[in-house]
């Protein structure tokens, strides 16, 4: 498989509960002519459509966030991807291999080497120490204890828990327990990293710290990530792309600024309402076509949030230049363009 191919492809994924759920989707690959009609019919038949025909790709090194309220089906999606739950129909291709058709022993092998998962309620084994918990997936593969513990120790250090290796989960705070969960999921160095509402059980301040920690780790490790959350702001913060989910369907998929700038429906717009746009909208979204550029004016990258432009703009009368990574100037931002940009958003938001 070429490096440019998406690592994970999810095609027409269905999960239906209820009477005769297995036979409810006509095609095993999940492709149907009229999805909406089928879902409506299933719901009439008292079936619960947890996931209805969901498709998406996740590129290598990308953080793909699925955001939805409770009951939207987001956790079911990630459970189907990891096959903790058996999907009703569809395809999940990891590096071109369909996870839904592999044998149980192949699945165990894939989980041992290619996947890591972090759980909302941590899922730590209460009878094991921090070190033993982190080394657990390695010992399941029958790696020598010495090597497993060395690797686990590295992971414990990576998540900043050095010195607590011998503690038991119940002796740790929630944030610390989730650090152990993260270390354990990374111990086998997986390509694909699933995080199922990893920070939802934590207090707001700790949650914020853990998000920073998560982004630091991702900068270092470049994993391919599927991240589930019910927190819209968290989705915007950590995601490269965000899918908004409702009643088993993706209703919008896009980058954080696409979602904030162009909400696809009133439902999404309700979430966007409270988001401080100045933090999400980027320089490239409001920049003017290149005019005259002074060499000495301040310059930023295209994906810099507007928030960070305020200080340099206030400091001098000159506009700020937007340069791409190659150093070419691609646009200009001045105070008027920021205000105009935000004002037009306001219109969109209300219209």
């Amino acid at each position: 498989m070429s490096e440019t191919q998406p690592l994970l492809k999810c095609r027409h994924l269905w999960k239906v509960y209820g009477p005769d759920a297995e036979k409810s989707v006509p095609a095993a690959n999940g492709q149907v002519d009229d999805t909406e009609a089928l879902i409506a019919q299933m719901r009439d038949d008292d079936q619960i459509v947890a996931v209805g025909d969901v498709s998406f790709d996740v590129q290598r090194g990308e953080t793909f966030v699925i955001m939805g309220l409770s009951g939207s089906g987001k956790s079911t999606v990630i459970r189907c991807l990891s096959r903790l739950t058996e999907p009703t129909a569809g395809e999940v291709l990891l590096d071109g291999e369909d996870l839904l058709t592999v044998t149980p022993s192949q699945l165990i092998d894939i989980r041992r080497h290619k996947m890591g998962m972090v759980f909302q309620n941590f899922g730590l084994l209460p009878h094991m120490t921090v070190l033993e918990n982190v080394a657990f997936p390695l010992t399941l593969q029958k790696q020598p204890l010495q090597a497993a513990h060395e690797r686990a120790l590295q992971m414990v250090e990576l998540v900043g828990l050095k010195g607590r290796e011998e503690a038991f989960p119940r002796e740790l705070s929630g944030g610390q327990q989730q650090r152990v969960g993260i270390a354990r999921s990374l111990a086998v160095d997986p390509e694909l990293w699933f995080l199922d509402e990893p920070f939802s059980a934590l207090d707001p301040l700790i949650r914020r710290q853990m998000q920073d920690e998560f982004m630091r780790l991702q900068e270092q490790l470049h994993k391919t990530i599927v991240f589930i959350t019910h927190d819209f702001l968290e989705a915007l913060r950590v995601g490269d792309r965000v899918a908004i989910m409702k009643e088993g369907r993706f209703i919008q998929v896009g980058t954080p600024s696409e979602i904030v700038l162009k909400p696809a429906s009133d439902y999404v717009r309700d979430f966007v309402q409270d988001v401080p746009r100045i933090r999400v909208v980027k320089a490239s979204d409001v920049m003017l076509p290149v005019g005259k550029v002074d060499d000495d004016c301040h310059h930023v990258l295209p994906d810099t949030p507007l928030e960070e432009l305020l200080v340099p703009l206030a400091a001098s009368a000159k506009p700020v230049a937007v340069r791409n990574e190659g150093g070419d100037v691609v646009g200009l931002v001045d105070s008027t363009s920021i205000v105009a940009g935000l004002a037009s958003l306001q219109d969109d938001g209300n219209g």
Partner: protein
Amino acid sequence: MAELQSKLQSAIADRIFLIWVAVIAATLVVTAIQPSAAWLIDYPKAWQIPLADVVNIGADWFIDSFKFIFRFLADVLEYPMRALQWVLHALPWAATLALFSAVAYFSSGWRLAAFTAAALFYMALTGYWNESMNTLALVGISVPGAIALGFALGVSGHASPRWRRTLMPILDLMQTVPAFAYLIPILLLFGFGPVVGMIASLIFATPAMVRNVLLGLDTIPETIVEAGRMCGASARQLFWRVKVPSAMHQFLIGVNQTTMAGLSMVIIAAIIGGFDDIGWEVLSQMRKARFGESLMSGLVIAFLAMVMDRISYGFADRSTGVSASHVPWWMQRRYWIGLIAVPAVFIALSFAFEWLASYPKDWIWDPAAWLNQLIKDFTRDYRGLTTSIKNNTLFFFMLPLKIGLQQTISPFSWGFEFTPVLKALYWALLAAVSAYAFVRRNWPIAVCFAIVGIVLFFGLTGLPWPTFIVAVGLIAWIAGGRNLAIFAVLSLLFVLTMGLWKPAMLSLYLVSVAILLCLVIGGTLGILAANNQWASWIIRPINDTLQTMPQFVFLIPILMVFQVGDFTALLAIIAYAIVPITRYTEHGIRQVSHDVVEAGRMMGCTKLQLLFQVQLPMAVPQILLGLNQTVLYGIGMLVIAALVGTTGLGQRIYIALSDADAGRGIVAGLAMALVAMIIDRILQGFSEQRKAALGLS
């Protein structure tokens, strides 16, 4: 007036009210025409179904055909027991004592070790060492057997829901059918001897383990299992390395309960075992009315039970968190080293000092004769007091429920004749009270008053069976719906057609009286303990001790003071069955949400208002569960109470046992189990309803 009219209208509109009125009316009519239709009260013998004989024919055939297998099994099982027995006798007593104390130390520390040493020393001191070791050998095989069997059954039930649906009713039967009942077929299949006791104890003790294994595996947090699967655990790894350790605490609680259940069967098993163990000792001394001796040997069992309970509980308590990756090997293995080294030292010493090897006869302290004298003096000096307590309870409380006021009241008991005028007065009063309740409150309370009044007048044994069955069916319907009602009616019809109606009513009467008293006394104690730390501190260890004592031991001291009869049985049942209601009441009140209690305080509740209007109503589901347990304990104690001369189903089972009549024993045992299950399901139904109403489920 308008209010009364609307009350009447809504009551008449309620189908259940009308049925109740019909049942009450029918009861009164039947009892009025009773002289001409006796079959409505006494089910005729000619109508009985001879199921017991059929069972006997089947059992005889089965035993004749397959006895050799079971006899072979008995022989096989006897080997490990004899071997263990040999080891326990060969070990110097001091070494055994040291070994147990070491185990106790590792389980929970010095205090338990000291208690264990004292308990075992008591066995040597009083001269019951050999008998104690024989009992230990029996328990030492049956309990691990029950644990292994229970674990296997629990795991298989967890793995296959279909198998579990078959397993659960079998467990219910194993625990509710009195052990005596299945002792008979076991006896016939396996023959006399200690192995029978071992197998009975195995059957009785296994369900506790199965239930705890199932509970443990069911309550593992889903996330832990998912995390295990995502770490790439194979099915076997998931089970042994994720599920088993996560559920270990519950498993060990199962081990604790299994141990206690196995031990409690020891004396019962002795009834048929006739084997030189402590149970036999208690029983034979009791039969000879040598209470001093039977108390001394009964204490051995009580101590043994307490020691085993605390040790296994200690391990359960400690089970979370044992890690040692970089401690030296001798620290990691220190338990095993200690367990081998400590007795080894004593074995070595026993070669030098003879008195460490076998406890010298001269040092035995036997206060039995002194105790017997003490009891004799006590009963002589306080005969007046004890008889008056006994008679008052009998005349004013027990007999009315048993045979009704109509037969209880006489110049001999109440001091006057129950003349027709007085009877008319009674009925008028009852009607007035019910009517008052109807007007001032609602119809269910009025119906309750009417029923209580009728039962008190005729007694449980004087009630017509058709209306009794309908009434129970109705209550079951209200508590748990149609299926429960059908179950209750069919079960009672079984009891009736087996010709066991009278004994069942006699059992019911004794249990009802005991449970009423348990509810009053235990409930009060529970309330006290919930509101007062000191009371809780005193009541808890007493409850713990009562619960760990084998049922049998309760009989001895009560028997000494009150002699044989219903009253002694009543006290023994209360002593045993009062524990759960006390505990659940305390627990129920303590767990009432603090917000609600604080809200009550802020509205200005007095302590009593808080108790009766806030805490107790919220605690009702828990209290009902406790009551349920109390009922089951009480029924379980009935068979044992039969040993002190009570009449009823327990007595039937006991007689069948001494006749080795498998059919009659099984039928009576089944009848008892069905009665227990009806009460159990009805109380559970009410508890669920309350829970749902309070939004707690």
